[in-house]
């Protein structure tokens, strides 16, 4: 009965979704000339960044990104509050094999360098703070699963995280101090397609990269430590 009702509901829902999507044929230009066209036209001259997606996320919609980072922080805080039960456990089960250990020790610095590259070059190539932070966290994950007693200091992680978050807010307030609006791009824009260009965009994305990397690593450590 429940399944039949669900299938019926899904059929109706799918029919109407498909009917709506018929108005948006695939691959046709239905780009909004006022918004997307302006982003595409003005990005290089106004923000100095070449990657339009990065300039939208960090510059035009920088306030949204601050909210997004806050949501991630709140989720991490909520998880730690729910999982903490007063006793810390160490993950001492059987060790991984020698090949896995040696391989992950070899790969770990390379993964960290890749993550740092991705978030430093966020305004030039695909990538940015969120992607770089996630790559760094997966590097730490590799160490967590191959070395059972690998240990990160939560104090250092929370210091890195709070410093990076404060840097984001302070850079935004600088815009209010020297310009007109919060997160205004007050630094010189530089030549497009060079590493030192884009004004505040690379600085903010580096701060976001450190924050996301530290946060996700702390999340993984909290969850892995409470596994029985």
């Amino acid at each position, binding site marked *: 009965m429940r399944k039949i009702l669900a299938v019926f509901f899904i059929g109706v829902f799918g029919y109407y979704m498909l009917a709506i999507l018929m108005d948006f044929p695939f691959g046709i230009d239905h780009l909004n000339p006022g*918004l997307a066209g302006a982003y595409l*036209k003005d990005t290089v001259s106004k923000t100095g960044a070449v990657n339009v997606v990065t300039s939208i996320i960090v510059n035009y919609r920088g306030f949204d990104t601050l909210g997004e980072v806050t949501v991630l922080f709140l989720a991490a805080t909520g998880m730690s509050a729910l999982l903490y039960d007063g006793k810390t456990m160490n993950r001492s089960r059987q060790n991984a094999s020698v090949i896995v250990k040696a391989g992950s020790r070899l790969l770990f610095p390379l993964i960290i360098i890749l993550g740092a590259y991705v978030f430093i070059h966020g305004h030039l190539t695909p990538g940015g703070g969120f992607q770089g932070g996630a790559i760094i966290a997966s590097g730490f994950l590799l160490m967590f699963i191959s070395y059972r007693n690998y240990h990160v200091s939560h104090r250092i992680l929370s210091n890195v995280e709070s410093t990076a978050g404060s840097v984001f807010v302070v850079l935004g307030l600088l815009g209010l101090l020297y310009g007109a609006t919060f997160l205004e791009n007050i630094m010189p824009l530089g030549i497009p397609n060079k590493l030192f260009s884009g004004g505040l965009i690379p600085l903010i994305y580096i701060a976001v990269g450190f924050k996301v990397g530290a946060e996700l690593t702390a999340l993984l450590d909290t969850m892995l430590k409470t596994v029985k």
Partner: protein
Amino acid sequence: MVYYIASLSLILIGLYGVLVKKNLIKIVLSLSLINAGIHILLIAIGYIDGRTAPIFSTPELRPEQMVDPVPQALVLTAIVIGLAITALALTIVIRLYDHHKTLDVSKIRELKW
């Protein structure tokens, strides 16, 4: 068109899982399927045939040769928020299991209203 059908079937399969399944981890998995379907749908709506990614990596590229960047920025945000939501939901699942020793929603009576 293939993208629309693929993303729509992901959304519908996920919706079926949320409505019918009773295991809590299955429900969270179905939610992440719906998430993935919506991401593909948004990116597919922003795609324009024969155009390239919105990155001015060479000076010859013109704005008329690029796809819509707004859905991409939107989906980038949505993926990160989706990870935060999934992690929080799974933490609540762990705590519920600790308390009730079951993952079946129909057996967790106190949750029903």
